[in-house]
Structures are given as structure tokens and as C-alpha cells.
């Protein structure tokens, strides 16, 4: 009895600390939205002026509409696609599965700015594929700068996020159900639609809501692809808003964040409603089971082609552009690529002392920082695990809040918290502050991954431990955590990839000695050093792909 009480108070402590970290920046932004000036300005007064200003802007409504369409569109593309990829990769005997896995994740760690630029080099108006196409087929049917292209590219490049959630969940499903379906004559597609995918509904719903969220704060893709047409989404609208008034107006940015939060909270509510019956999805039971792969037979090669096609469009296409750009001094109309091939860009890159330290810092914060973050996420997930209480409902809502702020605003808010909270001030320009910022912003993301794994653990195993006298903590340590370790590893890998390319969140915390690849890419892009940016990105991709391949080959097993 006493251990149960101790367990409950430990849960309360964890949730309270989480709330403290999450709510400090969010409440600060909320307060800022009702002021007439920066909150630290003595002249600031309470007012609704910022709301009136933003809501009377036609640009705001245009950006909101575009963003909503973009978010829905990319979710509609990436969730089914990601689920299908996950099914083919984890549950079938599709050829070439082993080799695909690390490649599938490339879009996650590629900075969207760079990815978008890669598309411009290949299929932009004077991209080399476009030029070639024109030679043989006349005018191309695509326009890289159109809204449709933006939605499709956003959808394709976000599919790996869904893939990670879905595959982690699928891997822990026992194969007997699929086998039964297959034996009774169901085709592979049928098995996927009626058996496998419904079993992982929680993971798919979680990822769907998250993609919808990411859709509200995508920045890099619309920045590059929407630039020439002046296409506005909420995050790029923030830029315009800042510039319209000449100086950054925090109250107006804060209002935009309030709008996104107003969209986010009902989404969490809907998600909770859908998941009320999470019990239905329990698959990891006390009894072990063998996993058999679904034989695709005649569908083997079509399935392979589907994945290869997705890979070609989402990774090869922009990557070819990037790699090509990194080895030439110029490109485009009237330039023969063979004449301009050069290694100068790379030589110049390694001349730049900042590059080396940026690479080292990025790798450090991603691997070690990522592992620590997963530790935090697991504690929070366990604190919520099988505890029907108002505390858990509360936690469910607040974890989404940091993600409701576009990265740059979240970064600013966290910067303020560190700056104006005296005990935290000395930590402000250290990697610790950067780590806190990353962990907070990707909280919902990593937490959901751990939670999806937890949802599949049947209660009887933990109950058995408790009945035999283990304390709550003991049961979690010896039963629950070992059962979800694959989920945790997958989460760590994902967080690692995301931390490598993250930038905007920490931009106000970065200083000399704490620079990261993402910050270098964005700052050099702004001043026109496109060659440096592309080289850096290519090296980034090569390093991470290599790292992934090695981790997957040795030791770390994503799948048991």
C-alpha cells in the first residue's frame, strides 16, 4: 500500500516538473499577446490591440487558410504512405528491405531548406531534369513553385515520420493474425488493410495528429518553394509581420501562436476521444509469439517498385540536385556541367574552422542529448502509464503546447525564460540550455513514440509483477521498460535525427562554441554561400547515413 502511494507521488512530481518546463514559455507568450510592447518594456500595457491588428489583416487569413490546407493535404498523403511503407518493410518478404531502412529516414534529418533547394536544382524551372524533359517532351507538367507541389513534397517528405511510428508498433505485433488471414486466402493488401494496420490504429492516429501539427509550423519548404510566388503560411507570415512594422513585434507573433494553440487543443481532445479504448490494441501479451512475414508472392516486385519510386522522388531527386550542386561552381541554362566540375567547394568548406566544430556539436547533442531526452520522455510516459487521473489528462494537453509554437517563437520564449529567471541565467549560453530547448519542443513527438510502445504492453505482465510483491517502480523497471526497449531505441534514433538538423529553436541560445550544423546552414544560406550550404548538407547526409547503417548492422536492433 505504502509503495503505491510513493509511486503515485513520484508520478505527480514528474508531471509537475514537466508542466513547469512547458508552461513557463507558453504562459509568457500568452501574456505577451495581451501587451502593447515587449513584456520587459516598462511602457507595455495590457490591451487587445495585437489581436485586433492580426485579425484585421487579410494576409493573416490567407496564411491561415493556406496553412490549414497544407497541413490537411500533407497528412492525407503522409499517413497512408507511411503506414504502407511500414507494413511492407516490417511485415512482408519484400525484396531489399534491409538496405532501404536507413535510406528511408534521410528526409527526416535533411534540413527542409536544403531539401527544397535540391528540388529546385533538379526539377525547378531550369533544373537539369526539367531542361532535359523539355528537350524531348515539351513543357513539363509540373511547377515546382505551385501550392500542389508544396503539398505533395511536404507529404512525401513527412511520410518517414509516420513510418517510424507505424513500424515500431508493427514490429511488436505477433504474426499469427496476419498468418491466419493469409492462410484463408486474403491478398497482401487485404491483410494490411484489414488486419495489420487496424491493429496499430493508436500509432497511426498519434502520427496523424503530429503531422497535422508539423503542418502548422513547416517553415523551410514554403520559405524556398513559396518564395518566388509570395506564398504565405503562418510561419512565413510571422516574418512578414515582423517586417511590416519595421521592428519585431512580439505581441503580434504571440497572437499567431495563440491561434495555433486554439487549433491544437481541440485536436488533442479528438485524439483522446478516439483513443479512449486503447485497451483494444494490446498486442504484446505475456505469451511469446513468433513473427512470420506475410508472403507477397506476385506482389513482391510491385511493392519493391512502389518503395523505390517513393525513394526516387523523395530522396534521390533532391539529393542528386544537392550532390551535383556541391561539385560544380555554377549550373543551369547554357552551362555544361562537365565544364564546371570542381572540388573547390569542399576544400573551401574544410578551411572553415566553424564547420568542424558545428559537426562535432551536432553529433554530440544528437546522440548524447537525444538519449537524455528519451530518458525524460520515458519517465513522463511511465508517470502517465495506467494511471486514470486528472493529472494524466492535464499532461496530455500540455505536452502538445511547445510544438504549437513555430520553432523560432519557441526559441525566443525559451531564451526569455532563461534570461529573466535569475537562477537559470548562467546556463543560458551553454549546451544545456540548447538541450532543454530541443527536448521541450520535441516533447510531444518523442513522448508519443514511447507511449505507442507502452500502449501495446498488456497489463497482466505488470499485474503479475505487482501481485508477486514488486513495487510500482520495480515493476516498471523490470517488466515495462524491458518490454518497450525497442520502442525506446527507435525513439532515440528518431530524436537523434531530428536534433541533428534542428536549428531555429536554439538560435537565441547559440553562441561561439555551441554552433550546430543547422545554424550554419541557415546563416550561410542568407548571405549567399549556397555552395558551402550544399557541401555541408551532403556531408551531413553521408555521415548520418553511415552512422545509421553501422548502428543498424551492429548492436542496436530496431526490431527484435
Amino acid at each position, binding site marked *: 500500500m505504502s509503495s503505491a502511494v510513493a509511486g503515485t507521488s513520484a508520478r505527480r512530481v514528474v508531471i509537475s516538473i514537466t508542466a513547469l518546463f512547458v508552461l513557463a514559455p507558453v504562459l509568457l507568450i500568452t501574456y505577451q499577446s495581451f501587451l502593447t510592447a*515587449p513584456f*520587459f*518594456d516598462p511602457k507595455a500595457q495590457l490591451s487587445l490591440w495585437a489581436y485586433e491588428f492580426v485579425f484585421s489583416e487579410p494576409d493573416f487569413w490567407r496564411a491561415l487558410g493556406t496553412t490549414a490546407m497544407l497541413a490537411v493535404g500533407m497528412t492525407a498523403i503522409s499517413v497512408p504512405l507511411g503506414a504502407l511503407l511500414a507494413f511492407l518493410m516490417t511485415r512482408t518478404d519484400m525484396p531489399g528491405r534491409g538496405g532501404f531502412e536507413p535510406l528511408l529516414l534521410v528526409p527526416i534529418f535533411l534540413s527542409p531548406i536544403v531539401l527544397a533547394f535540391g528540388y*529546385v*536544382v533538379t526539377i*525547378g*524551372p*531550369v533544373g537539369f531534369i526539367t531542361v532535359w524533359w523539355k528537350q524531348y517532351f515539351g513543357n513539363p507538367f509540373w511547377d515546382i513553385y505551385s501550392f500542389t507541389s508544396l503539398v505533395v513534397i511536404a507529404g512525401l517528405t513527412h511520410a518517414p515520420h509516420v513510418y517510424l511510428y507505424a513500424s515500431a508498433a508493427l514490429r511488436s505485433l505477433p504474426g499469427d493474425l496476419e498468418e491466419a488471414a493469409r492462410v484463408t486466402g486474403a491478398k497482401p493488401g487485404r491483410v494490411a488493410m484489414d488486419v495489420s494496420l487496424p491493429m496499430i490504429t493508436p500509432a497511426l492516429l498519434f502520427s496523424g495528429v503530429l503531422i497535422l501539427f508539423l503542418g502548422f509550423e513547416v517553415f523551410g519548404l514554403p*520559405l*524556398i518553394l513559396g*518564395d*518566388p*510566388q*509570395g506564398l504565405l503560411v503562418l510561419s*512565413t507570415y510571422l*516574418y*512578414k509581420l*515582423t*517586417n*511590416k*512594422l*519595421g*521592428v*519585431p513585434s512580439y505581441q503580434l507573433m504571440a497572437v499567431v501562436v495563440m491561434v495555433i494553440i486554439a487549433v491544437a487543443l481541440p485536436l488533442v481532445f479528438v485524439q483522446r476521444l478516439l483513443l479512449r479504448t486503447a485497451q483494444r490494441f494490446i498486442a504484446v501479451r505475456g505469451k511469446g509469439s513468433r513473427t512470420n512475414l506475410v508472403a507477397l508472392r506476385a506482389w513482391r516486385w510491385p511493392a519493391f517498385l512502389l518503395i523505390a519510386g517513393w525513394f526516387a522522388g523523395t530522396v534521390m531527386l533532391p539529393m542528386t540536385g544537392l550532390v551535383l550542386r556541391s561539385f560544380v*561552381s*555554377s*549550373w*543551369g*541554362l*547554357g*552551362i555544361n556541367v562537365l565544364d564546371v566540375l570542381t572540388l573547390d567547394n569542399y576544400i573551401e568548406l574544410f578551411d*572553415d*574552422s*566553424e564547420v*568542424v566544430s558545428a559537426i*562535432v556539436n551536432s553529433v554530440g547533442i544528437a546522440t548524447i542529448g537525444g538519449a537524455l531526452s528519451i530518458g525524460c520522455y520515458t519517465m513522463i510516459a511511465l508517470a502517465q502509464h495506467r494511471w486514470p487521473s486528472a493529472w494524466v489528462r492535464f499532461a496530455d494537453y500540455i505536452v502538445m503546447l511547445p510544438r504549437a509554437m513555430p520553432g523560432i517563437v519557441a526559441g*525566443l520564449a525559451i*531564451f*526569455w525564460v532563461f*534570461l*529573466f529567471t535569475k537562477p537559470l*541565467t548562467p546556463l543560458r549560453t551553454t549546451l544545456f540550455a540548447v538541450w532543454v530547448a530541443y527536448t521541450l519542443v520535441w516533447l510531444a513527438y518523442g513522448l508519443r513514440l514511447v507511449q505507442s510502445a507502452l500502449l501495446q504492453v498488456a497489463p497482466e505482465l505488470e499485474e503479475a509483477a505487482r501481485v508477486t510483491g514488486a513495487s510500482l517502480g520495480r515493476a516498471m523497471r523490470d517488466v515495462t521498460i524491458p518490454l518497450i526497449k525497442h520502442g525506446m531505441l527507435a525513439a532515440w534514433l528518431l530524436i537523434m535525427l531530428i536534433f541533428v538538423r534542428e536549428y531555429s529553436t536554439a*538560435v*537565441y541560445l*547559440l*553562441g*561561439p562554441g555551441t*554552433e550546430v550544423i543547422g545554424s550554419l546552414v541557415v*546563416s*550561410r*544560406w*542568407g*548571405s*549567399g*554561400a*549556397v*555552395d558551402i*550550404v550544399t557541401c555541408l548538407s551532403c556531408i551531413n547526409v553521408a555521415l548520418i547515413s553511415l552512422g545509421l547503417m553501422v548502428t543498424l548492422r551492429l548492436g542496436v536492433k530496431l526490431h527484435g
Partner: protein
Amino acid sequence: MTSAFSLSAGFQRVAFAAVAGLMAFGAQAQSLPAGYPADYQALIDAAKKEGVVTVYATTDSKAAAPLIKDFEALYGIKIEYNDINSTELYNRLIAESAAGTGTADVSWSSAPDLQVKLAADGLALAYASPEIPFLPKWAVMENMAYGTTYEPMAIIYNKSQVPAEDVPQTHKDLAKLLSTKAAAYKGKITAYDPERSGVGFLMMNRDVKADPASWDLFKAMGAADIKVYTSAGAMIEKVGSGEHSIAYNIFASYGLLSIKKNPNLVMVWPKDYTLIATRVAFIPAKAKHPAAGKLFLDYLLSKRGQAIIAKGELFSIRGDVEGKETAKAVDDLLGDKARPIPVSRELLETLEQSKRLDFLNQWQAAIKK
């Protein structure tokens, strides 16, 4: 490999510092540049005691590297160089000043309007640099903010896309080209978006001040379906590739870099008038190391620092620095057609909300087809 490299760099730094220290020790009197006050040595000593100078700057750390290296070697004072964009710089500075935790020792930004605003709002320290006599009058604001470079705003075009007879030499040429050959240049002209980019706004605003006929140019741009961007990198890259043909109002320092890489790119400084932009530096009032900040500001403006700026193709503002990328060379070429953007309260006007919105509305109306 890497660790050996950084180790040796570290040794170098220590060696530099030691040598610099010895030199300063041995030759205190003559180490002061000519014209500096006699008590300047006290400032150097105070700065050395502070030991470090924090710089917030928009200039790429790579472009600034020679300056940093030379300054560190000269005084043995370490530079903590933060390479951030102008909006970030502004946000950091006002928040840190308000929090009372201390802020950077030098703020050096390519957004002169924001720098002037910070100075006008009392966030800059008043400090009369001994280099003032060597600077143009318009580049010094109330002994607080100083222009440090002299960068022409250029037109950059792709010569494989623009035939010789079309090349615009003046703003009027460009307006004429775009209106007479609107079809040929449809979607081919590009510029900063004044609505989304602070630099873009300031430059177009100064264009209108330099020549009210700029509105006709903007109209012609609209007729040719101008594509507007938020970053110079994207514009130059796309002119280089031929997606666009002409980029308007590009910093010559960026232009030079790209011309070296792509022989198709050519830069024109308009002959009717050429805007001159300057990177503005000041010492924040709440600087943690004000003495070191003063020392770095003076160094930045000194002949020695400016010679490095010229060599780094950022264009020296001093009349007495020789070389291609200097105010002297630019003025020799432009005669009296240079139109420097002054570091003065005049720029505050462009930040006034109603005037700004008016200008943007006018811009919208001009480029509407």
C-alpha cells in the same frame, strides 16, 4: 587529425598572445596609432584586463575570420564572435539589455535602420572614437553608431541570358528594358521583397529618396512579373542558373563572391546613382566589457582593420585605404553618383508604422499588373 589541428591552432593562439603581450610590454609608447590620445594606453590596459570581447554580428564568421585573427594577435584579447541575423541580433540585444545581465560588447549589423533605432532608444554607449576624423560625416551618428563599410548596391545579371545591348547601366535603362521588352523578361527580374525583408524595404525606400522616378521602375518591374525574395543567396543562385536574368539591389560584397564562382554573372553599379550601404557598429550601453568593446570598435575603424575589410571584399569606408574594394575606388568610379545611406536618425522614419504601411501599399499598387 581534427584534434591535432585544433591543438596546434590553440598553441598558435597562445603563441600569438604571448608575442603580442611581449610587444606591447616592450614598446608601450609607440604601439599607439598616430592621432590617438595619450591616455589610450589606459583603455588598452583595461581591455586586456577584461580579456574578452563579445561581438554580435551579421557578417559571416568566415568573412570576419581575418579581422578576428588580426585583432587577437594585436591585443591578445579573445573575440567571442556570434554570427546571427539582424532580427536575432535586435531581439537579443533588447532582451539582454532589459534583463540587466549584460550584453554584447559590440553590435555590428547590416541593418542600419535597426542599429540606429537601438542607438536612438538609448541602448548604445556614447563613445567618440579617435578614428572619427577619418570617417565621412554621414557615417557617424552622435558619437554612438558608426558605419564601417562602403558597399555599393548593385544590379547583377547573367550574361548568357541578357544580350549586350540589353545590359542596363542606369536605373532608367532597367525601367526601359523591362517596359519595352516586358514579354522577354517576364519573370526574369528579381529583387528583395520589401514586404518580407527589412533590407529590401530600406533599399527601395532609399531608391525613392534618391530618385522619385523609382516608382516608374517599380511599375516596370511589376509589368515584367517581378519575383521577390527574402534572401540574397536564393536570388544570386537563380540568376546564376538562368531561372531569372537580373537581380536588383544586391550587396556588391555578396556579388563579388558569386562572380568569382560563376563567370556568367556580371555586376553593374548604376551610373545615374548607386546606393551605398554600410554595416553599422556600436557599443551597447549594457556591454559586459566596455573597454574591450571600445578597443574593437576603434580597431574596426582603424586603417589596419579597414585594410583587412578591403581585402575581405567588404569595402572599406576610409578614404585613406588603398585597394579595389574601398570607398576611394568606388568613388573614383562613381564620381558624385554615390548615394550613401546615412547612419542617422533620418532612418527612424522608415520604421514608423504608418509611413511604412503607406510605402508598402504604394509598392503593391505599383507592381500590380
